[in-house]
C-alpha cells in the first residue's frame, strides 16, 4: 500500500485542516509540557525547589510505594482492558442486529453506567460488596462460596472489585464507538457473505473485526491510557487500600501533589512514567497492527 505522494496543493489543504487544532495544542500544551519536564528534574518540597538532575529518577527506583502503584496499575490494564474491549465489541455486534427487539432499551441500559454519578455508584458498590452485602449473600445462597468474600478488606479481592467496577462503568462507553463504526460497514458485504453460506462466527471474525480494526485500536489505546490514569474508582471505592493493593500511579501522583507535603518535581516524574509506558505500549500495538495489515 504505497502512499501516493501528495501534491503541493494537497499538502497545503492537509495543513489547513489540521491547523486550528495544531495552533490550539501549541498554545495550550507546549509550555505546560516543557514546564512539567523541567519540573521532573527539580527536587524539594512546596516552593523550595532546586535542580536535582537524575535524583527523582533514582528516587523512583528506590520508592516501594511507587513500585507498588506501578505493579497495581499494570495488573489493572493487563487484566481489565481485554475483558472490557471484548465485552463492548460483543454487545455492540449483538445490538447492531436489526432483527433484535428492544434494541434501544438494551443500548440505553448498557450505556447508563457511564452517566451514573460517581457518588451514587461508588457508595452503592461499597455497600453491595460489603461483608454482609447483597453480593456476598447471593454468592453464599448460590453455594458459590461458603463464607463471605472480603471484597474490601483483602488485597486480592479489592483488585478484583476495582476491575469489576471499571468494567461495569466503561463497557457501555466503549460500545458507543463500536456501534458508530458498525454503521459505516456496508451491509451488502454481509448480505453477500450470508448468501455464500458463511456462518455468523466467520462473518464476525472475517468481516466485522477487520472492518472495525481502526476503532478497536483506538479504543484499546484509549482504554489503556484511561486505565493507566485510573483515579476515580480507586479514590472513591477503596482509597487505594487495603495496604495499597489498589493504589494506582494516578492516585499516587494525586497524593504526592495534594495530600502529602507537595513535591511537584517528583510527582511530575511519576507522571512521565505513564508517558513512557504508553510510548512502549503504543509502539508495540502499532507494530502488531502493521504486521497483520491485510494486503489490500
Amino acid at each position, binding site marked *: 500500500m504505497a502512499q501516493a505522494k501528495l501534491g503541493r496543493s494537497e499538502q497545503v489543504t492537509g495543513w489547513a485542516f489540521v491547523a486550528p487544532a495544531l495552533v490550539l495544542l501549541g498554545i495550550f500544551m507546549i509550555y505546560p509540557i516543557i514546564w512539567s519536564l523541567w519540573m521532573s528534574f527539580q527536587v524539594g*518540597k512546596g516552593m523550595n525547589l532546586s535542580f536535582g538532575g537524575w535524583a527523582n529518577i533514582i528516587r523512583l527506583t528506590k520508592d516501594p510505594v511507587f513500585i507498588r502503584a506501578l505493579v497495581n496499575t499494570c495488573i489493572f490494564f493487563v487484566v481489565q482492558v481485554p475483558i472490557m474491549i471484548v465485552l463492548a465489541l460483543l454487545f455492540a455486534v449483538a445490538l447492531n442486529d436489526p432483527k433484535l427487539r428492544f434494541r434501544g432499551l438494551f443500548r440505553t441500559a448498557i450505556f447508563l453506567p457511564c452517566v451514573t454519578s460517581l457518588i451514587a455508584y461508588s457508595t452503592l458498590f461499597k455497600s453491595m460488596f460489603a461483608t454482609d452485602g447483597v453480593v456476598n449473600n447471593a454468592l453464599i445462597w448460590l453455594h458459590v462460596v461458603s463464607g463471605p468474600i472480603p471484597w474490601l478488606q483483602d488485597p486480592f479481592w479489592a483488585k478484583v472489585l476495582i476491575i469489576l467496577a471499571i468494567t461495569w462503568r466503561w463497557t457501555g462507553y466503549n460500545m458507543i464507538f463500536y456501534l458508530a463504526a458498525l454503521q459505516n460497514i456496508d451491509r451488502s458485504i454481509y448480505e453477500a457473505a450470508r448468501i455464500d453460506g458463511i456462518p455468523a462466527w466467520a462473518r464476525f471474525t472475517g468481516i466485522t473485526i477487520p472492518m472495525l480494526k481502526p476503532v478497536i485500536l483506538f479504543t484499546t489505546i484509549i482504554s489503556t491510557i484511561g486505565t493507566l490514569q485510573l483515579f476515580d474508582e480507586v479514590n472513591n471505592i477503596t*482509597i487505594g487500600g487495603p495496604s495499597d493493593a489498589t493504589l494506582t500511579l494516578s492516585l499516587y501522583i494525586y*497524593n504526592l501533589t495534594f495530600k502529602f507535603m507537595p513535591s511537584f518535581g517528583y510527582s511530575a516524574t511519576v507522571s512521565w512514567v505513564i508517558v513512557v509506558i504508553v510510548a512502549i505500549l503504543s509502539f508495540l500495538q502499532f507494530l502488531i497492527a502493521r504486521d497483520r495489515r491485510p494486503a489490500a
Partner: protein
Amino acid sequence: MNRFAPWRRALGIAVAGISMITASAALAATTVNVWCWDTNFNGAAMREAAARYNRDHPDVTINIDVSMSQDDIRQKLQTQLLANNTQGLPDIVLIQDDVAQKYLQSFPGAFVPLGDSIDMSQFAQYKVAAATHDGKAYSLPFDSGVTGLFYRTDYLDQAGYKAADLQDIDWDKLIDIGKTVKAKTGHNLFGLDLNGDGLIRIMMQSAGAWYFNKDGSLNIVDNAPLKAALTAYGKIWQADIVKPVSGWTDFTGAFTSGDTVGTVDGAWMVGTIKSKPDQSGKWGVAPTPKLAGVDGATHYSNEGGSSWYVLSSGPGKDAAIDFLKTIWAGDKDFYQKILVGQGAVGTWLAARDGEAYKSSDEFFGGQPVWANFSDWLAKIPGVDYGTFTAEVDAAVVAQLPAIAKGGSVDDALKAINDQAQQQMQ
C-alpha cells in the same frame, strides 16, 4: 443546504458564548471573602458570626463561599499559591489542623500571623500549637475535635453495664465489655475501616504523642504510645467485635443504623448521631478510654477540627482580622449560638462559662454532654502535627490489615518507619 443550518447556528452560539464572558467583579476594600466547606456546620457558624459583626460594621460585606469541598479548597489553594497567582483567593480560609503545617511551611509568607494581633492564650493550647510555625501562631482556632466514646446505652443495659462502668477505663477493659455485649446482644462494638487510621491517631494523641520528635524527625519505632495504640487496635480486631466498613457513609451507617454499639470520635459526630431522632435517649458519651501502661496516658484526645487562616494577599485582610478578633475572640454569646445551632464546640475558652455549655441533652439521656466535652478539651495534650502527617498516615494504613490479622506490631512499626522515611525525603 438546510441540513447544515444547525451547524451554522451552533457556531453562532459558540462565538456569542465566548464574547459573553464577563470578568470577575472588582472587589471593594471592605469586602471579606471566606472559604469553608459545610454549609450546615462551619458555613452556618460563619454566617452567624458575619451577621453579628455587621450589626456594628454595616460597611463590611462578608461573603461566605461554601461551594467547594475541603479537598476542592486544598487543591485550589495549593495550585494558586504554587502558580503565584492569588487573584480570586479569599481573605479567610478554613484549614483542618493536621494539614496546616504543610501549608505554613510550603508557602512562607502566604498567611498572616494572627498571634501578632490576637491574644492566643484565650484559646485551647493544643489548637494554637497546631498552627504555630517558627514561633508565630497563624490561625484563629475554630472547632474542637475533642473525642469521646459514643455508645448505645440500651445495648450496654442488655449486657448488664451501666454508664459508670465506662468511666476511667482503658482499651483492654473496653474490649472485654465489647466481647460481653457481643455475646449477649449480637452487636459488634465498632465499625472500622482498614483504610483509615483515625482511631490510632486518637489513641496516640491521648498520650501526648505524635509521629514526630521535637526536631521534626520520625518517631515511630520507639514511640510507646503509637506501639500501644497499634497493639490495642490489633486486639480490637482479634476480639471479633468489629464490623468491617468502607468509606464514610458505611462508617457512620454502622452506628446510626443500630448495627454497632458505638464509636470513638470527635464531638462534631453529635450531629450525625442525632440525625436519627428515634434513637433519642438511647445514647451516652463516656471519656475516651486510656492506653494501658503508657506514660502520660489520658482520657482526652482530638480528631479533626479546623481553624481560620487569613491570607496575606487578601485585599480585605485588615477587615478580616478585625472581624475574627471581634466575634471569634470576643463574643461569648456567639459561641452559645453555634453550639446549640450547629453543635460546634468552640475552642475559645471563655465560651465555656456560657449557658448553652451547661445545658443537658435529652438525646444523650440528660447528660451534660457539652460541659463534659469542654472540660475534656482543655485537657487534650497538645502535639505538633508536623508537615508529614499524611505521609506517615499512608504508611500506617498500609500496615493495618496485617495488624488486624494479628501480625507483629514491631514488624509493622519497622515497615511504617521505612516507608515514611522514604516518603519524607
